[in-house]
């Protein structure tokens, strides 16, 4: 359907920079997710793709044609909004048919009915949006966005108003539908799970800039920056900040070998930490049963360290003494600028006064 390319794209509001020169290529039929905290410029980017906002710098290209000055109505883009934005005075069928009003198509009603069947709202065509549940409204919004066979489908936090179970169903539904139609899709979300489960590629944004582009696995296991490491993953990654001297970070009688000096941050995911015979001594302070697993937090010389155990019955209680261990290759090391120092790992040192 369409390749999309952003070149040095930026959007400046009166006093603030929302998007600060981003470059990105999206392949035809690709499903990408733009992930980031609120205010990172992800929705602004989406609305620039839609033609709702005009960029203040850079270029947007659809299949090599610059579309910066092309109005929303002429871009052939479908959008699903967080609020769904269904027209309240129209029935479901009229909502889905609305985009076809402005195109010369034969038998628009049949097309709308087909699309309604595809998103499974064929039974609800005479209802008003106010008579639909959140999930049904979501499907109608999707049908309306897709009925004109857009070059590009834009999804703005489409699942954030749904309850947890429905969100799970809609994630795979949206994936199925976009794949079936082969439409290039950009999803904007602050939910990492949504981004990583639905998209082929995830673009992580922060403060108007792209931090990292990659697969879900890249972002999780090989984050390039401290921000990506801390934004992705739940429960969040353990971050130990310290000053590296003689290739190690010390706290009291404990030390972690880093092989690097200067301002360092060591990142270790909670599920990579195990309780062992020997290791970093800690006192259990928090026990949280999360269903399949238990999240603990132990007080150590390096601060509170979170770790997970895959049991449903807690093995430790508040105040228990444990020794924490981890594999060096599962650690991440970040330098002063918050950039990851590749191929360098952290390793627990031998207790100095042992």
């Amino acid at each position, binding site marked *: 359907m369409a390749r999309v390319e952003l070149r040095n794209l930026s959007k400046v509001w009166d006093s603030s920079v929302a998007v600060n020169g981003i470059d990105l290529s999206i392949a035809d039929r690709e499903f990408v997710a733009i992930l980031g905290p609120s205010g990172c410029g992800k929705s602004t980017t989406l609305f620039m793709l839609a*033609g709702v906002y005009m960029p203040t710098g850079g270029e947007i290209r659809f299949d090599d044609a610059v579309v910066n000055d092309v*109005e*929303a*109505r*002429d871009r052939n883009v*479908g*959008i699903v909004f967080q*609020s769904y934005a269904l027209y309240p005075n129209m029935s479901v069928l009229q909502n889905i048919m609305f985009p076809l*009003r402005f195109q010369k198509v034969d038998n628009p009603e049949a097309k709308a009915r087909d699309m309604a069947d595809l998103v499974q709202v064929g039974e609800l065509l005479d209802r008003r949006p106010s008579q639909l549940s959140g999930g049904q409204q979501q499907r109608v919004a999707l049908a309306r966005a897709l009925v004109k066979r857009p070059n590009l489908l834009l999804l703005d936090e489409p699942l954030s108003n749904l309850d947890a179970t429905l969100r799970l169903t809609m994630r795979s539904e949206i994936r199925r539908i976009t794949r079936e139609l082969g439409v290039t899709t950009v999803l904007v979300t602050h939910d990492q799970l949504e981004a990583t489960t639905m998209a082929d590629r995830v673009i992580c944004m922060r403060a108007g800039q792209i931090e990292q582009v990659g697969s879900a696995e890249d972002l999780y296991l090989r984050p390039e920056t401290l921000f990506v490491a801390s934004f992705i993953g739940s429960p969040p990654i353990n971050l130990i900040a310290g000053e590296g001297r003689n290739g190690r970070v010390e706290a009291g009688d404990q030390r972690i070998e880093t092989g690097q000096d200067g301002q360092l941050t060591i990142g270790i995911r909670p599920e990579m930490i195990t309780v062992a015979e020997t290791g970093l001594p800690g006192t259990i302070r928090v026990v949280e049963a999360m269903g399949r697993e238990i999240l603990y937090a132990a007080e150590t010389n390096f601060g509170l360290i979170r770790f997970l155990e895959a049991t449903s019955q807690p093995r430790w209680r508040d105040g228990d003494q444990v020794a924490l261990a981890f594999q060096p290759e599962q650690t991440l090391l970040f330098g002063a600028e918050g950039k990851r120092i590749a191929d360098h790992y952290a390793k627990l040192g031998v207790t100095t006064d042992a």
Partner: protein
Amino acid sequence: MSSSKFRQASNALLFLGPASLFLIGLLLVPIIVDLVVSFTDMNQTIKVDEFTTKQFRKLVKPSEEAWFGFELRSSFYRALMLSAIYVFFTLTIFNIGFALVLALTTTALPGRLGGLFRAIWLLPRMSPSVVYALLWLWVVDPTDRGLLNQILSITGLGPINPKLDAPIMVIVCANGFIGASMGMLILTSAIRSIPEHLFHAARADGAGGLSVIRHIVLPALRWPLSYITVFQFLALLVSFEYIFLIMGPARSTMTMSMLSYTKTLAPDTGSGQYAYGAAITLILIVIGMAVALLLWRLTNMKQLLTQPRIEVQ
């Protein structure tokens, strides 16, 4: 009576009392007084000698040929027609039509500029009626000093006398320019309460400016528009102050409310016929009620009052 019941009753009295007194004292009692007075012979002396229907006989006369056995007397018929024309054109052209145009254009303008234009339109409402009327007198002045004639003289057209040649147009415009601002305010806030995403969605769906107005804005304005229609209809039906201030007791603009005013309270116009004025007012009240109920039915306003009608996500 138990103490909680007593408290309930006293609370009800406390909360509803002032409003009830207001309703009864300022709305219900005057209607009853009007009803009683209209069937008397009260005049300047404010004395009632007899109860009679003669006031109504000044308005209608028995007739074999007419529909209900009554025929409207010409002065009354004329007042009725003038009222209808005046209310209809002021309502449709200005209070609704122009208010809608103002609301649509000023909301389309960027924030500050739109606000400025709306503030300008509110100015006449803020100025005293007499000042506003004096301005209109200057605008339609038949001599070379009149604003309209000054503008016309630039284009080479001769002076005109609107008060003589188009009296209804003068009172429609004078009331309309001031009346449009209320509709403008209500419609502006209604337009602003439409979720912005609906506009974005419509644009992305391929809608142009006019389609957005037709499919997104107008449906959202249905309820405010019916409210303005009913409210302004009733207000216009009984309004006379600008007509009186600009036109005086002229026959050409003697609407029902003007007739009632000039026959009773207006100075130096053969006033003091209180019972006659009351009869005219009674007819105005009946017309107002009938039309309000009809519009109520037509626009299904019961629904408007039972639940909020502007849907916001």
